[in-house]
């Protein structure tokens, strides 16, 4: 067990904590307390209010929305310890991080690793300030789990690429400014014929058509590219290196989107807290329904152990220098538990937990139903659970394809 002094090695952390508190006192608008919307990333931009804008700009200017990213590109330049303190203090103040989305979670870290100096200078600072929305142009109708089968082509036209093809399930495509895209630059090799290209969504020839989801929202799109001209400097890495870069990005996606951290944040209250509000308690304040009590305890034990796994894995992979295959394990476990949790909550609430609209349901109940339905996607996107199992079996455990 760590002692107090080991946990807080130097006064510098105290000074930093003080700095954060002061910053929050000066900049965090009181009326935004507890208002972070967990589904904002998938529901699209709601018109930003003045306080929201101010808060985003304040965090962006400090680079604290992307706390560990290098300062020179607009990040916070914090070490891990400081980033942890920042998170703690935000939580204490009821504040949320207003800067997120695919640019922060997936694209930024990948570009920092593979991008050219010019590309980093151009694209990272606006991400840190929360000024651009990125979308992911990976999947196609016949390239889902088999992503490398993608057929959208980028033809070399000397000073630019000419892009033609169709992407699908593009989350937030209708709101995005830019798209990081996997395209085919060579037909002769399935994997080495793929390149990583950045496309402006307002380029002529880009068309998006939103698709309605079972949760009633329409946050994802079919995206069509017809003779879209993309400047050569928008190629990340070398031509043909797209598969390697694209996979690295997926590791970030898996760790971030579906692993421990964001999941825990998405989840808010514990299941037992909710249960105590909706279920009958006995005289001792315990949940009267014995079966439900047992199931809630069973879930919370596994959830607790998942959070510890997520923390350990994150620490270990950071110590080893970045994301790793362990992201597949986290994604597989975290998304399953997240879905179980949502199912359990609606069961606890009974029919009150299944409202679609209209009278008699609180905002959080209605949001819970949508989140339950949307959450079914977490085991599908970013590489489905089945694909994570394949990755774990083959790449982590060294089990072979059947011959």
């Amino acid at each position, binding site marked *: 067990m760590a002692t107090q002094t080991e946990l807080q090695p130097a006064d510098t952390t105290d000074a930093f904590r003080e700095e954060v508190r002061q910053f929050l006192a000066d900049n965090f608008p009181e009326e935004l307390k507890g208002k972070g919307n967990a589904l904002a990333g998938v529901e699209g931009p709601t018109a930003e209010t003045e306080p929201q804008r101010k808060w985003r700009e304040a965090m962006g200017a400090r680079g604290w929305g992307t706390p560990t990213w290098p300062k020179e590109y607009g990040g916070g330049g914090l070490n891990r310890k400081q980033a942890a303190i920042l998170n703690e203090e935000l939580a204490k103040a009821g504040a949320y991080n207003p800067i997120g989305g695919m640019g922060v979670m997936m694209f930024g870290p990948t570009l920092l690793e593979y991008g050219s100096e010019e590309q980093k200078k151009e694209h990272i600072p606006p991400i840190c300030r929360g000024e651009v929305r990125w979308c992911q142009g990976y*999947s196609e109708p*016949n390239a*889902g*789990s*088999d992503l490398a*089968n993608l057929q959208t082509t980028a033809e070399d036209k000397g000073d630019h690429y000419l892009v033609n093809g169709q992407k*699908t*399930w593009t989350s937030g495509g209708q709101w995005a400014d830019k798209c990081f895209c996997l395209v085919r630059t060579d037909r002769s090799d399935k994997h080495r014929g793929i390149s990583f290209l950045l496309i402006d969504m307002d380029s002529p020839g880009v068309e998006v058509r939103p*698709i*309605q*989801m*079972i949760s*009633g929202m329409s946050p994802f799109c079919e995206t069509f590219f017809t003779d879209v001209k993309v400047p050569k400097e928008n190629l990340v890495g070398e031509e043909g290196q797209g598969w390697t870069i694209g996979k690295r990005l997926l590791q970030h996606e898996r760790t971030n989107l579906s692993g421990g951290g964001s999941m825990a944040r998405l989840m808010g209250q514990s299941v037992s807290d909710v249960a105590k509000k*909706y*279920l009958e308690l006995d005289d001792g304040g315990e949940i009267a*329904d*014995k*079966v*439900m009590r047992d*199931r809630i305890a069973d879930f919370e034990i596994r959830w607790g152990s998942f959070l510890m796994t997520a923390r350990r894995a994150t620490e270990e992979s950071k110590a080893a220098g970045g994301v790793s295959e362990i992201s597949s394990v986290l994604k597989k476990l975290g998304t399953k538990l997240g*879905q179980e949790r949502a*199912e359990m909550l*609606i*069961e606890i*609430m*009974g*029919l*009150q*937990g*299944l*409202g*679609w*609209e*209209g*009278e*008699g*349901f609180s905002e959080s109940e209605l949001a819970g*139903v949508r989140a339950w*339905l949307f959450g*079914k*996607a977490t*085991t*599908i*996107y970013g590489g*489905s*659970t*089945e694909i994570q*199992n394949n990755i774990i079996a083959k790449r982590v455990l060294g089990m072979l394809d*059947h011959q």
Partner: protein
Amino acid sequence: MAVLNEEQEMLRDMAREWATNESPVTEFRKVRASGEPEAFDRGAFGNMAEMGWTGVIIPEEHGGSDFGWLSAGLVVEELGKTLTASPLIQTTIAAAAIVLGGSDEQKAKYLPKLASGEMIGTLAIDEGARHDPSKIATSVSGGKISGTKAFVHEAHGADLFVVASTDGLYLVEKGDGVSLSTRKLTDQRSHADVTFDGASADKLAGGGDSLLDDVLDRARILTACEMLGMAQQVFDTTLDYLKQRVQFNQVLATFQSLQHRMADLFGDLAMMRSAVEGGLQALDSGFGVARAATIAKAEANRVLHTMSREGVQLHGGIGMTDEYDIGFYLKRARVLEASFGSTSYLKNRFAKLGGY
């Protein structure tokens, strides 16, 4: 599949043909798009009544066919497959309550109308969001009933409510002293809180002390039949999809991990079918109904829950779209799962019935 007699086979085939041709899921989409709180097609329900489906468990002397519960279940299962929106189940349960507990006069007054589809009935039991028939505050005094019932299925179309009160079940007709407050649930069907404010109530005085439980057992079993149809359909649709979708230059159905998943689901479906048919047979034989009903609904909850989740998962991204039907099954599944006994309620009840 239970061994059916010729009559039952004909009934099932007729129901299957009608559901497939006249009431595919596109019909449910129309109901949904209409936005009507009643949420079913009167014309389609009229067809069902003409085919005799509203009278399957009603004695011949009162205008039914008295074909029995297994027969009723076969029809409901077929309609569940295509998510046909109708008050057939609720009307059947209301009729069952009258068959079990009604006086000759009540039977003569209501059963023929329920059998012909002229009248729609429903159960109004629970007073909270979770099924719990031990918690009833609605009471009757001087033939007038007062209280509020939560999440009553098919309330908007109902002409007759079978209402649980502190001293038994009552029949209440739509009219003075009955008001509805719509509760729109994720399955987009008719649900409402129904308030009885001094409405005239006619007691079902027969049927003994267990009348409420007996009626609820029938509701559990018939609900499980709808769930069985849904589970079967999700399974079949998913299997078809896996046999057709190509990734990695192979149809998905060739992947062993998916084969094993489908084999597991197939086993679960077999268990669910036995449990549901066992419930129907218990009703027809009049033996061991409470235990059989608990098993039927608990297994229906368990298997449809898994099946509906796996159905979406195995379809991948397309399963998340509103354009594709599979999500409808997921949404309806959770509503039925919570109705007339959630899994935890049924497990506790099962243990109580077993004396432990």
